């Protein structure tokens, strides 16, 4: 029986985290294979609905990562994103969603090692939590 491997989708900003992940690659630092990155110009662009869609598509965990506050290439996108996550996360928690499946990070273009760490620790945490069956089951509630 194959051991459960979580499916992680990561939404990252082009200027910091994507570049940071590039650095991880250039430095040949190995990390878990479970993550699939989607490139966006800025964390400010990341609609919270995208996270819901990631889960609907079968993700067991989601990572959102961008520039450190104050360093945004577009000056303020990550500040707006931060407010959005503060509210979204509290709403998810209120509705009973396990917020240990949603992770946020600031990874700069120089933090190649940090990106690998973030991915590895998220994969480990989500592996512990198991597959996100509750969310998949929901698709059948009301229909069966």
């Amino acid at each position, binding site marked *: 029986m194959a051991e459960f491997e979580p*499916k992680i*989708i990561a939404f990252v900003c*082009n200027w910091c985290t*994507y*570049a940071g*992940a*590039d*650095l*991880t*690659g*250039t430095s*040949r*630092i*190995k*990390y878990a*294979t479970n993550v*699939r*990155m*989607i*490139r*966006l*110009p*800025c964390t*400010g*662009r*990341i*609609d*919270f609905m*995208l996270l819901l*869609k*990631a889960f609907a*598509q*079968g*993700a067991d965990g989601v990572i959102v990562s961008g520039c450190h506050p104050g360093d*945004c*290439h*577009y*000056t*303020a*996108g990550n500040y*707006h*994103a931060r407010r*959005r996550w503060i509210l979204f996360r509290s709403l998810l928690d209120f509705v009973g969603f396990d917020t240990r499946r949603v992770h946020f990070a600031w990874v700069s273009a120089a933090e190649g090692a940090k990106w*690998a760490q973030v991915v590895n620790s998220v994969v480990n945490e989500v592996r512990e939590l198991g597959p996100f069956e509750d969310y998949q089951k929901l698709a059948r509630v009301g229909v069966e």
Partner: protein
Amino acid sequence: MSRIGVFICHCGENIAATVDPVKVAETMSRVPGVVHAVDYKYMCSDPGQNLIIEAIKEKGLTGVVVAACSPRMHEPTFRKVCAESGLNPFLCEMANIREHCSWVHEKSDITTDKAIDLVRVIVEKVKRNAPLYDIKVPVTKTALVIGGGIAGIQASLDIANAGHKVILVERDPSIGGHMIQLSETFPTLDCSQCIMTPRMVEVAQHPNITLYTYSEVEELDGFIGNFKVKIRKKARSVDENLCTGCGVCMQKCPRKKIPSEYEAGMGMRTAIYIPFAQAVPNKPVIDKDNCLYYLKGKCKICEKNCPAEAIRFDQEDEIIEADVGAIVCATGFDVLGTDSFPEYGYGKYKDVITGLQFERLASASGPTLGEIRRPSDGKEPETIVFIACAGSRDPAKGIEYCSKICCMYTAKHAMLYKHKIHHGKAYVCYMDIRAGGKMYEEFVRRAIEEDGVNYIRGRVSRVYEQDGKLIVKGVDTLLGSQPVEIEADMVVLATAAVANTGAEDLAKKLRVSYDAYNFLAEAHPKLRPVETNTAGIFLAGACQAPKDIPEAVAQASGAASKVSALFSGDELSREPVIAVVNRCPPPVFSTCEGCFICEQACPYQAIEREEIKTRDGKLIKVVAKVNEGICQGCGTCVAVCRAKAIDLQGFSNEQVYAEVMAL
């Protein structure tokens, strides 16, 4: 119908060692919409690029996906290839299977599967890519420089010498800023006025520079390449065309005891005045707050005596409108006054002065003709204590930063004092010595070793007057915090450099960001120090942060080169990754409901309001509109729009959704 071409690169062994490119290509060929899927050793090489060119021609590709290294490396390369083959460059994207896959995982099926996923994501995105075209914005090749200090002067000359027109606006009656107030400059002890006045004259005479002194920016509208500025030319009460600068008015003016701004309060001026002898322009101004005619309707002696009949009491402010394409903000700094320091006497002790005031005493054209004399009784001070960090690096005074120039000018002041009064005793009470520039450390060493200036490391707690002397109570921390008490004849405070008055208001008019100290904000602290986050507005000099003359000049030239680059074509070409507000047929016209949350969120204030009207001018609704010239394409507006009425070209909702759904 999509006809996507997928090209999987081996990148030698970089990708092929851990990912199976043949399998990836083969899997991709079975994806709906993909009509061409091949693998090759080096896609970025000439033969690799040819594969793309041929495929576009032979298979009529509508989109190209190159699965290779990071788009941050080669996206421009492959986009250029597509453009040259007749395919819109924005229909070409890259899937990163090297930095994000082959280099970070071991060789296995899982790694190849991940590569397949990553390519699939980009294929789905490209299926929904629309051709995009660079945005062209016209450019007015005139620059506006705000502030006529050394930074503003340097920027103006550089831009003018590059062949473009410059409008230089200075709010004081003459250009020169603070540098023209200095006696000698560190580390060379060059006479400040000697090196500056030629520049000032060059500005006045330059055919490309229009100089407005005693003027301020009233209003700014527009955007990069297309600004509209209103300048208020304040009334000098003198007809500049007739005035010859003879100075008779100043000689005759009965109001002679007005503290001079140029002399930093160390000397006096008249109500009608030219601020200093080398002023540019060399024309007087009437200070309406102190002139007897404006106060009481009397006097008019200047008018009676003016040989050129140039006095015009009824002159009014003039509003000048101009079109400019770029703006350089060089509004400089100010220093804290002695009245900010209760511990040093609230400015009540006449012999406690600021560094800028000491400059005027030391200056050969100053109120004491270059002799160091106590302001209270005019005697030579036998002992001077220089207090460094007066206000700077002090959270209690609300100024946490270091003012950068004080260590150097304090050393300079001590040296000048010793040069002029050989037997005098100079003490510098300091916290640290910051002498990082070229020849700076050697300069400070010279003060200590050759000129015998005493450096005492410790802060001064109090200065008070006793028996005609100023008692300075400090501490020597290098001697185990031993208390030190000096009886001084004069105390010079190296007061903090702060943003110039009116900086906040100007920043608001220009819509540039500023920090808690009212210093204007650069676009990126490391890599974009002369730009602001407002497109087309640049920074030079101390308005951005305290700095010395070489840095101000360097930054000014940097800003000038940015302006010249902006003016180098007749049109500005911008990447079309920008936001667009939806428009649709009547009766809806646009799914935007005009709540303008996007307007508030946009970091660049690129959202404008557009009125949609009927044919006879009746208002239907007000919706948002993105200014193509300003939008930088961050997409924050797209995420906050509830109705999804605004979308980002290049990272549209449809595209990103398809990317997620492909996983």
